[in-house]
Structures are given as C-alpha cells and as structure tokens.
C-alpha cells in the first residue's frame, strides 16, 4: 500500500524548483528537480527567460554596428562573439587581415579565456560554500581586467574587433608590462591549482559528482571544456586554426569522468596553457598594419566556429549586398552543453545541484534565442512541430 505522495521505498517525493531566480544561478534558467530525501530522481529544465532578440536586431542595423551588438551578447565572451562575426564577414568579402591584427585578436581571445576560467574557479568555490576561494580568484582576475584596460581602454567590452582588422594597436611598452603581468598570473594560476586540487573539502565535494561518460558527452553533443573533461579531445582552436592559432602548437587539455574535479583539471590546465600562449603571442607579435580597408560586402554566406571560453561558438552570417545582413544565426556553447545536464544531475544529491549546474560554466542569457508565448502561456516546441510548421 502506498500513501499519496510517498513511493514504495517510503520516501516522500518533493518537487524542488531551482530558478528562474535562485542564488545558485547568476542568470535566469529554471530547473525542476524531483527529489527523494536528498536524492535527485528526475530533472526538467527550461530556458528562455532572458530572450533579447539579438538575431533580429542584427538584421535591422547596418553591418558596421553589428560588431558591437554581438559583442554585447555575453559579458564574458565579449571577444569570442565579435571575433567569430568579423571572421565570417571577412570570409564573405575575401578580406586579407594583416598578421599583426590576427595576433592581437588571438591575444584578446586568450586573455578572455584566462579571466573566464578564473571566474569559473571562483564561482565553483562560491557554489560549494568556499567563499575564500571565490574572493581570491576574483581578486587575481582583476589583473586580467587591468590588462584589458591597458590594451583597449575597456575592462569588459573591449571594442577591439572591426571588419578588416583590429582597432587598438599594442605598443612595445604595453607588451612589456603585459609580459610581467602574465608572469604574475602564471604563479597565481599555480596557487589556484594547488588550492583547488590539494584541498580535501573540495575533493569531497567534487570527486565523482556530476560525472559524464565519453559516450554520453559525444551523444549529447557536449562542447568545450565540458566535453574535454569527459575525455573528448575536441578543441576548435586546434581543429579550425582560425586567427593566429595556426602558428602555434596546442594540445587539447583533457581529463576523464567529466565530474567536477575533471572540469577543474581541464580549466586549470587551460589556464596555464593560455597564459603561456599569450606570453608567446606577445613575444612573437609581427610588425605591420593592424587594419585593411575594404570596399563592399558582396552577397554570400559563411559559417564558422570559434573556441569561446565555454566551448565551440558557431556564427552563421548571410549577406545580400546591401548595408544590412540577410540573416545572422548564433549558437552559443551553453546551448550545446545543456543536454549533458541530465545524466549529470540524475542520482546526485540536492547539495550537489549548484556545483553541477556551475560546473559546465553555463551562460544562459547568451543561449536564449527564442521564447514562444501564446496567450500568456509559455509552450515547448518539439522537433516535429518545427518540421510541420505547427507552432
């Protein structure tokens, strides 16, 4: 005999909503967990709370303004989006970007990865109640933002990319002080790695938590550090060799199991890798112009991939020969990573929900591309609905 609300094992099933507004999430997303005691037995997720119709806006403005619009899709990947965008436009118009501009773009991209991974380490600490780690990594992260401020005059939105090159040149003096700042960050990265990987209480909260097998990671289409933590050696920087990545030998940093410790291992290894790569980039910065002029953007289409700090970022750009874009489609990395939440959450404890949610480094606002509200009610659209056009 079962009592209402109590299952055959004697546990009361409880529905625990996390979000859209919850201290564990920096951005709006909604997870509905079904828990037995402390154990999660089912999970459903819903995104689309912060839809800003950026793709539509991209079609309504002249293309000179779109670089700055896509820059504002994400506050952390504020270089990856415009980088991918200008590379697509340059591909359509067949613009040959000077080598120096390519190097400067790569420097910004790697600095962005450094501060994003440090931000991740801090947030992961905060989610498991380790506020000191959060305070420490975020304090050191300020050094990267200071570096950005020195190079571009801005800390978050750098406004560095433009079609045909970059806007801000790097002087000898800036390169020198950047080198010393990066040497400091190198020792900081070692300290963070030691603090995270040698700490007993972090190992207790992270080992075996939120695991994802390699097969599941491939099947569910995980990207970026999330996929690499499960042992998928997939890194767009290595595969596509965009910007100046072709001149450097990079190894994808991988770990096994996909749990929180593996995610930390991958990101901390990439932190070190990026710091060393940025030092090399500053040292090998070629001479020459930073920008070429271009005449017209011909009709055409281009799709390309860039490794944002959170993973593979896809931009599709279609032009029609006018001042406006025909279509822009953006696939942010978090959208590809969300399905991998389900195997990570099933069977975990309620206490592990925040750290698992944070472990893939989600960015829900970047992900939200469409919200359907019919008569004040949100609906879910299935793949079949899309094919038959019954929306």
């Amino acid at each position, binding site marked *: 005999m079962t009592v209402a609300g109590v299952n055959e094992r004697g546990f009361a099933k*409880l529905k625990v909503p996390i979000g859209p507004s919850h201290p564990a999430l920096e951005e709006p997303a909604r997870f509905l967990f079904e*828990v037995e005691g*402390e154990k999660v037995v089912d999970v459903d997720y819903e995104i689309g709370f912060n839809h800003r119709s950026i793709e539509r806006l991209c079609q309504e403005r002249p293309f000179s303004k779109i670089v700055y619009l896509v820059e504002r899709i994400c506050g952390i990947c504020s270089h990856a989006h415009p980088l991918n965008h200008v590379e697509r436009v340059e591909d359509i118009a067949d613009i040959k970007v000077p080598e120096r501009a390519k190097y400067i773009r790569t420097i910004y991209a790697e600095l962005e990865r450094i501060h994003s991974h440090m931000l991740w380490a801090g947030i992961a600490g905060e989610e498991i109640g380790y*506020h000191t780690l959060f305070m420490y990594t975020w304090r050191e992260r300020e050094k990267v933002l200071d570096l950005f401020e020195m190079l571009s005059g801005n800390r978050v939105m750098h406004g560095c990319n433009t079609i045909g090159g970059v806007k801000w040149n790097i002087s000898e003096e800036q390169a020198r002080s950047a080198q010393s700042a990066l040497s400091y960050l190198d020792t900081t990265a070692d300290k963070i790695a030691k603090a995270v990987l040698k*700490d007993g*209480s972090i190992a*207790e909260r992270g080992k075996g938590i939120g695991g994802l097998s390699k097969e599941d990671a491939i099947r569910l289409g995980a990207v970026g550090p999330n996929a690499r933590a499960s042992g998928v050696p997939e890194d767009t920087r290595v595969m596509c060799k965009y910007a100046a990545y072709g001149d450097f030998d990079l190894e994808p940093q991988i770990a096994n199991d996909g749990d929180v410790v593996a995610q930390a291992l991958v990101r901390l290894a990439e932190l070190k890798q990026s710091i060393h790569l940025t030092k090399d980039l500053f040292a090998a910065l070629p001479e020459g112009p930073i920008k070429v002029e271009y005449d017209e953007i011909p009709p055409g289409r281009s799709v390309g991939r860039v490794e944002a700090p959170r993973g593979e970022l896809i931009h599709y750009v279609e032009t029609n020969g006018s001042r406006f874009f025909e279509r822009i489609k953006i696939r942010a990395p978090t959208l590809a990573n969300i399905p991998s939440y389900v195997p990570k959450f099933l069977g975990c404890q309620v206490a592990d929900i925040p750290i698992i949610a944070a472990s893939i480094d989600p960015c829900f606002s970047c992900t939200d591309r469409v919200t359907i509200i019919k008569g004040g009610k949100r609906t879910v659209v299935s793949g079949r609905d899309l094919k038959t056009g019954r929306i």
Partner: protein
Amino acid sequence: MIASIIIALVYAFVAALLLQGIRRIVVAHSQFRKGPSIFQTFYDFFKLMGKESLTPNVTSPLLFNLAPILSTASMLVAALIIPLAATTSAVGAGDMILVIYLLAIPPIALILGGSASGSPYGAIGAAREVALLIAYETPFIIAMVTVALAAGSFQLGTISATAWVTVLPLAAIAAIWTLPAAAAVQPFDIAEAETEIVSGPYVEYSGPNLALLQLGQWLKTFLYASLIAAVFFGTAIYHYEPIVNLIIQFAIIAVLVTAFIAFWQATTARTRVTRVLRYYWTIPTALAVVDLILYLAGVRYMHFLFGWAGV
C-alpha cells in the same frame, strides 16, 4: 536577584552579537576583505525588529510563529543558568543537564519552523538540521558526561571550580571540535546553504520572526562557547573581580570562536549532509570516549604535568 538577571541577559545579548561581529571581521580579513563594522549584527537585528513579519499561507501558523520565540526564550533561560562572568548559576543541582537540553532547542525550533513553513527548501533544511544535531551532540554529551563523572557532580558551580582541560584534554578537544557545527557556519552551514536551498528554514521568515530566529542561533553560539569555557577553563574565570572575570571569559570565548569557527569557515567548503555523521562520529567521539574510558580506568595521564595544581 532581579538586577543580576538583567545583567546576565544584557551581557549575553551584547556578547553574542559582538562575537558575530568579531567572527565576520576575522573571516573578512582572511578573505582579503575589510568586512563589516563590528556592530553590524546589532544594526541587522534592530533593523529586522522594525520590519513587518509575514506568515505564508500554507503553513501551520502557530508552529511557524512559535519557533522563533522558542529559540530565543530557551537561550535566555540558558543565559541565566550558565555561569557567566558577572553572575552565578540561577539553579542548583543538575543544571548542566538542563543547559545541554536547552542548547538543543534552537536547532529544534529551526526544524519546527522549517517544516511548518511549507517550503521545500525549509523541509530539506529541517531534515539536514536533524542530522547535524544528532552528529555533533554525540561527542559533546560524552565529553560533558566525562567531566561530570570526574567532578562527581552535574552542577556547573562545582564543575567550574576546576580547569578540566588540564585533566581531560581529549574531552576538551572533542567538545571544542563541535563548536563550528553548533555555530552552523561553514563547513556545517548545511541547513542554511544559501546556494543550495536558499537558507533553508529561514527562507519564509521575515521581520521580527527572522530576527529572533537568528538571535537564538547567535545566542546559542555564544552560550555553547561559554559552557565550554566554564567547564574546561573554569578556574580561570572565577578567581578575580567580576569585571576582570568578565574580560577573561569573553577573551577565552572570542579566541575559541575565532580559532575554531572563523578560521575553519574561511578555509573549507561546505560539507555534505551524509558526511557530517561520519565526520563527528569518528575522531571527536573517539577522543571523548577514550578520555571517558581512561578516567574510569583510573589513568591520570595529565598528572605529571599539572600534578602541582592538585588535579
């Protein structure tokens, strides 16, 4: 009599809130922050007292509103019994047993309030508080019983005539070890855990109800530390003038709180509920039990060190 009761209550209130201020500043400094004013807890408390108290619809209103009062009232009674610096105990024989029971009431009030709040976060928080209470009370009570056996009395006045840390150091370590769990800060803030369950039982409370529920917790931290100070560092407190005693006692408590609560809070991640039992039922319980067995077996291993003091 009335005067000494008022002095004890005011002292407990001021000291408990000051301790939280000290803890927050120590934690802030170890996190490279300046931290709040030492009086921040007072500001928070009086601000909350002036706000509106809301009762959610789905709850059992009586239990929900009773829990904060129960929490604070039990602690005020305990403040009269635990020998604080300026006053002596209000009751006689067996008052230690009474105090141990009273110190368990704020967690029980949290459990009641959390369950009555009708929020899933409150329910999960209440279940976690139960596990936490069972975990840390076990080594604490064994340590206290060991001291009572050694003193031959359950009366705090008699017990605090000796500094028992010099006789039963293992029991003292076990009792001090339970301080962070009793204070419910990291790594043992599992019942609140704001990133996980949005501060659990506190989530539906507001205004004076929230203030009293928190005051109960703050008073409990202070009184728990003062009980440990009175039992294990007894003679240090009662040799001098009342004002000197007060300073010594508060210094001991402040050191206990900073060294065992604040530093621990600053250097660890929050633990999981399944881990708390394993944590407290192994080493701290073993330490307390070893001291109990050694004492019953007549082994006075500290005698060679403190023999001159007549212990």
